[in-house]
């Protein structure tokens, strides 16, 4: 075991994969000389040269589209979008091209491209740099969606994303980058579509993504002291969705809260709640609940922003409504 930051875990995953497979090429704004806006590719330019670690102009549609072309012709590009909000600038290449090419080609072509981008509010970055876009892109068939939690998970899941033959959008949480985590010395790829039981419990199931996993675990610790035994599931990937693990847990607890930082409307919580209600309605002992970003843009002022952010406290309060 060792202690590293979440950003270093990203770096290590990239480094180890690039060392393993010369077809892996990094592309993005500021990924080279300064080692990434969030320091997630430090040292890689020096190690792998400027053809494999490419600082791009600010042309998101352009370099994501290039990633598609690279992936179609045998490379495994890893594209960094500085903020997940910028997915919208490159939306055509992500949604109409990368996600659809395999299908439109009748399976002739694959697009093994990873798009990494940070999500999350909390930096007073206001409405265009604070969004969590995982729910929006999860709508589209043909893209896999990873929402890792801890540094260990980031490292293992990023390796899997890079090795996967489909386009993957890999959502990192920007508020976690500088936090330190304990991590195994060697981290193997973590399979997609297999959720992790972060904490076992019998009273209520909290399905969480990204940093909501850590927040939910902390909330669960508080709730345990009050006799409420929460099961926290780290979803790991939204697509593919580990329906079975969630079903088994909710069959046990009868109650479900989904904690995800994307907007609530048409969000991950709504999706999972609908799945569960369809599959195991008669196991539900209470309505499915959501902890999500309210349906307003993220504001600049900390006084406005922080009250909106899905937090440990919000998970705690939400769960408490089930045990009055």
């Amino acid at each position: 075991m060792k202690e590293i930051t979440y950003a270093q875990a990203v770096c290590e995953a990239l480094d180890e994969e690039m060392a393993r497979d010369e077809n892996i090429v990094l592309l993005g704004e500021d990924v080279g000389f300064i080692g990434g806006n969030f320091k997630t590719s430090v040292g890689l330019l020096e190690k792998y040269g400027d053809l494999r670690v490419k600082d791009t102009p600010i042309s998101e549609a352009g370099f994501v589209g290039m990633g598609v072309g690279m992936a179609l012709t045998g490379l495994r590009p890893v594209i960094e979008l500085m903020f997940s909000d910028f997915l919208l600038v490159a939306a055509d290449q992500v949604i109409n091209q990368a996600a659809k090419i395999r299908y439109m080609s009748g399976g002739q072509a694959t697009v093994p491209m990873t798009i990494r981008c940070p999500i999350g509010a909390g930096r007073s970055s206001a409405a265009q740099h604070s969004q969590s876009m995982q729910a929006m892109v999860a709508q589209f068939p043909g893209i896999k969606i990873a929402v890792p939690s801890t540094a260990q998970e980031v490292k293992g899941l990023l390796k899997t994303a890079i090795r996967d033959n489909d386009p993957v959008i890999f959502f990192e949480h920007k508020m976690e980058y500088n936090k330190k985590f304990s991590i195994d010395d060697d981290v193997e790829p973590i399979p997609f579509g297999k959720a992790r039981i972060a904490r076992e419990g019998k009273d209520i199931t909290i399905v969480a993504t990204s940093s909501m996993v850590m927040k939910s675990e902390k909330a669960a610790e508080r709730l345990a002291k009050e006799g409420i035994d929460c099961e926290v599931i780290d979803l790991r990937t939204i697509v593919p969705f580990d329906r079975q693990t969630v079903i088994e847990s909710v069959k046990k607890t009868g109650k479900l809260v989904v904690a995800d930082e994307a907007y609530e409307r048409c969000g991950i919580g709504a999706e999972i709640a609908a799945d569960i209600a369809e599959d195991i309605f008669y196991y539900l002992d209470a309505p499915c609940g959501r902890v999500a970003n309210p349906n307003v843009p993220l504001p600049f002022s900390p006084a406005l922003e922080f009250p909106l952010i899905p937090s440990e406290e919000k998970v705690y309060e939400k769960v408490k409504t089930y045990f009055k």
Partner: protein
Amino acid sequence: MAEIIVMPKLGFNMSEGKLVNWYKKEGESVRKGENLFSVETDKTNMDIEATGDGVVRSLLIKEGDSIAVTLPIAIVGDSTEDISAVLAEALALLGKDSKVCDCEATGQTESTADALMTAVKSDGGRAKISPRARRKAGELGISSDDLCRFVTGTGFDGGICEKDVLAYAASLPADTRQKIGAAAAATPVARNMAAAENLDLDGIAGTGANGKVTKQDIQAAMAGAAAGGAARTCQQAEMNAGVKLSQDGKEILEEVPYAGVRKIIGDRLAQSKFTAPHLYFTQKVDLTNLLELRREVNAVQEQKTSVTDFIAKAAVKALQKYPEMNASLLGDTIVKYKTVNVGIAVAAPGGLIVPVVKNAEAKTVTEIAAVSSALFEKARAGKLTPDEYTGGTFTISNLGMFGIENFTAIINPPEMGILAVSSTKDEPAVIVKADGTKEIAIRPMMNIQLTTDHRVIDGLLAAQFVTEIKDLLERPVALMV
């Protein structure tokens, strides 16, 4: 015009009734005054008559169902009229979209679970039962009606959740529980002991709170386990011989379920006997004057009086003088009543029953006689309404007509006392004359024995009270004024 027949409220405290018997099937005609159905309340069965002529168009509950009072149970109307609107109204009141009777046919517990009672815990007409609770209730064969009536929701927004269903199931009697496969309620210690000894909790009667199986129950079950081998041998013998034998080899004449009214009476008496420390006081009463007075009274008026009526009047007067005896112990409060409601025990077809002469403090002996004779007649016909056999403050049990010399009675809780009246017999009695001399004479003598609850009543008071009754009965003119 079709009429909705409801479960009648047959007493102030009656919240639900069990439909024992439908006298009419759907489609049969019924005349005003004919028995339509019978209802079991907490103490008796009552036949309910039709209040008009018509045809039974729809029976909404089936025999054996319990339902809250005032809710629809049937529709009676003309043979041809369209009852769909009335039926819809009735079903809406029941909170369901189909008749419970139909559920039985399909054996569908889920549709039973859908048949919700709106009377309790409803929210805009829908009972708040979680899907999981419905599912569990369905598995256990517990109707949503029962959930609504008996279960307080502790789940989300006060709804009934699975935990509530399980708690309810565990509170049911063991035999019911076994039938539905619900886990027995047991204390954690008892549960561990049972697991260690490989004992089936369902086979053990719980004596703890809410019928929970306790450590003591387990110990008792373990002590009785030794007899098990012999019992099995006997069962084998029974099968071989075709003769019904008890576990210890006795030939059985008949097995009667300890249930219904018998069980209610028995359980109440046991509760009384083992809760209230009973204290007994006996007096011998000379009835010479009373019998003379009664003769005179009965000679001049149409309403005949019995000795019991005079004893009741004497008790009323004594209770007024000693209100401690006209009281109830309710929790941690002793409530003394000004109202005197005298219950008079009587043997009825279903068992012992105690009709109550209400407001006896305001009644003359003759009035008491009028009320009591009417009540006795109804009791013997099994037609007492719950209001007529509840609410007593003191009870008289007279077995005089059976030649009993002396007996003790068990208090009818939450009352403080009961007077056991034995038979009147001519006996030699020592008479103290006005000049102080004594002589032996033959007198009609009667034993009365007071049982009191020693938690509240001390010996001195009890002695004074029973002596007061004796004095009143021996100088009965006081009873007439």
